[in-house]
């Protein structure tokens, strides 16, 4: 009885997977893969599901027959035959599982190496191989000339993305579509884990350790990323976004991120805001256009974001509340609260923050 129940629950799983796939505008679920790595993982998960379904069907069938057929009737005092065991059966259920495991082990090892591919620079710089190997390395290096390698640092509770062009982005990472992008990850304070379910697997960001992971998005769009390793009270809120753009759009974005700051028009509210931003010491933690430090998320393209601090809907009311009392949104975060900031200052700073955009006028 129990057996059938479990079995029935299990069968609709694959149907459910399909149903659940296409929801939400930010792509999140791993059941709807958008890149080769995610696709590989998904396909092999399905493979293992088939193999496991086979095991489950066999066990549940045997179990079901046993519990129905061999019930003791009331008043039946006969002692059943005491069977010691069976060598043939023991061998059968040793060998068949081994075969099933081999079926899973082969793709496991192949996939482990496939996903562990190093960033092209690393392959090129290792240098002195001879003959074919050297050529291959050279090819890889040539291919990798414009491969994007982004340094990722996990902070409590935000993500820092350093681009090879020298600028920094916070909580939102832009990547070009259709090519492998490498992420070299490390942790700043505690261990976090970098995970974009719709694009691929996760990798831990550990202080003192540099790990690497490649991801590829096959379609332009926004992919939601999460921190997957417990990192403190606001672990659940440490989301980020991966924005995949066509290569030319991506190049344009990189250019505008690298450009010098356009100072706000003089005497405007925004210019006042900029002054407040400096006077209050915001710039001490938040860099803008490459100026200031990266103790807090860089705000260069702040106004392009959909969320404040990765999780709060972007609007001016929320922004003000966030600045006055960040702890009420993200417990344990490191931002200094400004509960007593005057209304004019607040208005100015919000105005200023709203001008921080690198996207074309929309």
């Amino acid at each position: 009885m129990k057996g059938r129940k479990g079995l029935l629950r299990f069968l609709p799983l694959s149907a459910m997977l399909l149903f659940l796939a296409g929801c939400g505008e930010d792509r999140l679920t791993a059941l709807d893969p958008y890149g080769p790595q995610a696709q590989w993982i998904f396909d092999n998960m399905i493979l293992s599901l088939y193999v496991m379904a086979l095991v489950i069907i066999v066990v549940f069938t045997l179990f079901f027959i046993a519990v129905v057929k061999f019930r003791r009737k009331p008043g039946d005092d006969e002692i059943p035959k005491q069977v010691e065991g069976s060598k043939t059966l023991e061998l059968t259920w040793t060998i068949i599982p081994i075969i099933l495991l081999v079926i899973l082990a082969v793709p496991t090892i192949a996939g482990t190496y496939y996903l562990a591919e190093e960033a092209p620079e690393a392959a090129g710089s290792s240098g002195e191989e001879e003959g074919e190997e050297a050529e291959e390395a050279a090819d890889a290096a040539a291919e990798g000339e414009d491969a994007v390698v982004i340094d990722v640092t996990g902070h409590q509770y935000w993500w820092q993305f350093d681009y090879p062009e020298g600028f920094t982005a916070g909580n939102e990472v832009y990547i070009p579509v259709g090519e492998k992008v490498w992420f070299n990850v490390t942790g700043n304070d505690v261990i976090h884990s970098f995970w974009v379910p719709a694009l691929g697997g996760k990798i831990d960001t550990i202080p003192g350790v540099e790990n690497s992971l490649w991801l590829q998005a096959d379609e332009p769009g926004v992919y939601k990323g999460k921190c997957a390793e417990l990192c403190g009270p606001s672990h659940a809120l440490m989301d980020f976004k991966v924005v995949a753009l066509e290569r030319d759009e991506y190049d344009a974005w990189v250019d505008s991120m690298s450009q010098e700051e356009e100072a706000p028009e003089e005497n405007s509210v925004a210019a006042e805001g900029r002054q407040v931003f400096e006077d209050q010491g915001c710039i001490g933690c938040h860099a803008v256009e490459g100026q200031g430090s990266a103790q807090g998320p860089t705000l260069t393209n702040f106004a392009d974001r959909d969320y404040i601090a990765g999780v709060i809907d972007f609007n001016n009311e929320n922004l003000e509340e966030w600045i006055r009392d960040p702890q009420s949104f993200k417990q344990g975060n490191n931002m200094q609260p400004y509960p007593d900031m005057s209304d004019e200052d607040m208005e100015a700073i919000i105005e200023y923050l709203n001008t921080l955009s690198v996207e074309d006028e929309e």
Partner: protein
Amino acid sequence: MATATATKDKSVLWDWLTTVDHKKLAVLYLIAGTLFFVKAGMMALFMRIQLMSAENDFLTGQTFNELITMHGTIMLFLAATPLIFAFMNFVIPLQIGARDVAFPFVNALGFWIFFFGGLLLSVSWFFGGGPDAGWTAYVPLSSGEYADLGLDFYVLGLQVSGIGTLVSAINFIVTIINMRAPGMTMMRMPLFCWTGLVVSILIVFAFTPLAAGLALLMLDRIFGGQFFIPDMGGNAVLWQHIFWIFGHPEVYILVLPAFGIISEVIPAFSRKRLFGYTAMVFATLVIAFLGFMVWVHHMFTVGLGPITNSVFAIATMGIAVPTGIKIFNWLFTMWGGKITFNTAMLCASSFVPTFVLGGVTGVMLAMVPVDYLYHDTYFVVAHFHYIIIGGIVLGLLAGTYYWYPKMFGHKLNEKLGILMFWLFYIGFHMTFFIQHILGLIGMPRRVYTYLEGQGMETMNLVSSIGSFVMGAAILVLVINVVYSAFNSERITVNDPWDARTLEWSTPTPIPEYNFAQTPQVRSLDPWFYEKVHGDGTMKPAEPMTDIHMPNGSILPFVIGLGLFTWGFGMVMMNMENTIVPPFLVIGTGVILTFGSMLIRSIKEDHGYHIPLEQVKKIEKEVS
């Protein structure tokens, strides 16, 4: 030198505090384990309330983290372990035909040290909150820089309770190797004893690295050790290695005795001997051995490289083979039997398919690249709850219903039992099956909330409702215990289940010396053998004489208290403005502990003898 001490004059409380009788200690373990189980279960319910709806604010992130940490820590160290020890303590000496364990004093010592360790962990709530870095306590989150006092209680509480577990395990090993009745060869031992032996060996080799790891973390937090700080030459991954070298065997430490219980209950109620006994024993040994070879599968995303990951993936998959052997042997034990479905058998038989569901996700998790998806998501949460609840808890429930009459002299009510089983079983699948999918759609584990519009609301609600159904089941169990205590018929026969192993040859209630004469064992399932081939009684292996018994002692309690005091003193080193200087407290603890050990060492205690006449009198009373 051996004079009978008057046991009758002692008060009930003093008797229980000083007892070294394995049967009474089993009851103490059972009570302590149940209390911790209920406590940690309530925490789980709180967490499920918080996760019932998106962006719920029933709990803060901090409180939630404290709850997940305490839930995991208590369930594994302070609920599952003592509950298993309760059955091991009660059943193993009886099943091997011994009068007590090898070191009755150490047995009591193990219990009290465990108990005071658990208490030390629990008092953290009164000093600024529980530990909050997860039961795995990964550094740097658990280091002095990022975690408060709660983690000190975690480190010292586990250190102390771990010592208790360790000495108990040594005791079980010696008991099983040296104390077996004549004729009880290793290959005639019931499977529960085999798993008990293997598990005890695992504890000796797994809890010691944990002790070392906890010592490192303690030195880091209290004395400024630099083991885990990269800037000072330390390594943050070191802790994970040490923790999982302990942590993975810990899973088998808990699940193997459950396997043992299932291997007792299924044959008893199928009226058929265990199918493939030899294969079962070897499968147990192989599982234990491989259990030490697979710790890195908890660390696939740490970035140890494809070679390491592949090797450990293959080793992990290997464990599926002996486990599969076990599953099929249970199935074929039922096959061709005459099965009686009472609560114990319902729990034991439903264990088999449930555990398979947990096992197959285990193999799926071993596929490294796919694990990059599953790791640290609700998929993993679902997987290990299938193993722990579907495996260990169902096993423990089966054991409870099965051995209850021998332990307490009456059966648990069957109607309430069956109601409990179905509530529990349905609630369990409702809670955890759906969590597999939650993980795949992107819900990391240990999150205190999730945002709206990610498609997680309904599934979380279902899961929460399921957890309450499970809670109701446990409530029914508690009601059953109370109800049965007053309304159930007293058991007067030796063997209410018509079972197979030696513990059922003893009278109910069991006299404190267990066997008036050590039995002569002639076969596997000796009691069944005598019922079928003999005259239904065990043949004695020795003439009836005076019986030597160990004296009770308060020292185990005092040593436990001493270690508690020591641990609390160590935590005080990190407190501000303590009323008493910490070193005074530490000193008191050390003096209590080592002083008691010194007394024990100097004062020779040879126990006492129960004279033959009295033994005869007791035997007449019980039969």
